[in-house]
């Protein structure tokens, strides 16, 4: 038995964001958990559903609220090795939004192209949920 056999496969952890970003602390907390989970040897995915899709909206300026502008961290998720970021397509449509109104989650080092979250149907998100070891909902 080699050493590598003793290493358990990376746990699959999904973070589900379903609330809007500024009225409560939940989305901020979800962001912190994303970064913590990513720092361990876990396979992290993040899914934005329902009002959670508002968290990724471009052009949010919280200077009038006097709260911390934590939203900019979503634009560097890829740098923190949070690369599997999905958005519920029907939740976007219900809010008259599409992928073009969302912020990028990182920039490709080689091509300088923006890395965008991926839109998925609710059915596909369900399939992803079935594959997880744990799901954390915010």
């Amino acid at each position, binding site marked *: 038995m080699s050493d590598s056999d003793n290493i358990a496969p990376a746990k699959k952890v999904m973070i589900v964001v379903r609330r809007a970003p500024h009225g409560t602390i939940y989305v901020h907390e979800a962001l912190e958990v994303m970064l913590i989970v990513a720092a361990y040897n876990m396979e992290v995915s993040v899914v934005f559903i329902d*009002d959670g899709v508002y968290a990724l*909206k471009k052009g949010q300026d919280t200077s009038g609220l006097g709260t911390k502008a934590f939203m900019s961290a979503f634009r560097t998720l890829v740098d923190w090795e949070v690369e599997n970021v999905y958005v519920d397509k029907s939740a976007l449509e219900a*809010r008259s939004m599409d992928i073009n109104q969302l912020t990028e989650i990182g920039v490709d080092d080689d091509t300088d192209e923006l890395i965008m979250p991926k839109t998925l149907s609710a059915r596909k998100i369900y399939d992803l949920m079935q594959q997880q070891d744990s799901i954390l909902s915010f």
Partner: protein
Amino acid sequence: MNTALENCMEFVGDDDVIILIEDGVYAAAAKTAKSNLVERILNKNKVFALQADLRARGIESLIESVDTVGYEIFVDLIEQHTTQSWL
């Protein structure tokens, strides 16, 4: 989605003014699943949305005839009316 606005609408009087604040301002965004509801309210009542909350959420395209207000007018409106919060 939150149903505070649906609840509020059942009890709104003719002279009442509705001001959308915090996450309530999402209802002011144009062409969403809530837009029809807000447009129905607008047939009878004035609807305002707080500017700082709109900007924080990156909401630019608003339902026509929803007026944006700053904190000063927000306070004026509170002074002029008996307030009821729909948390």
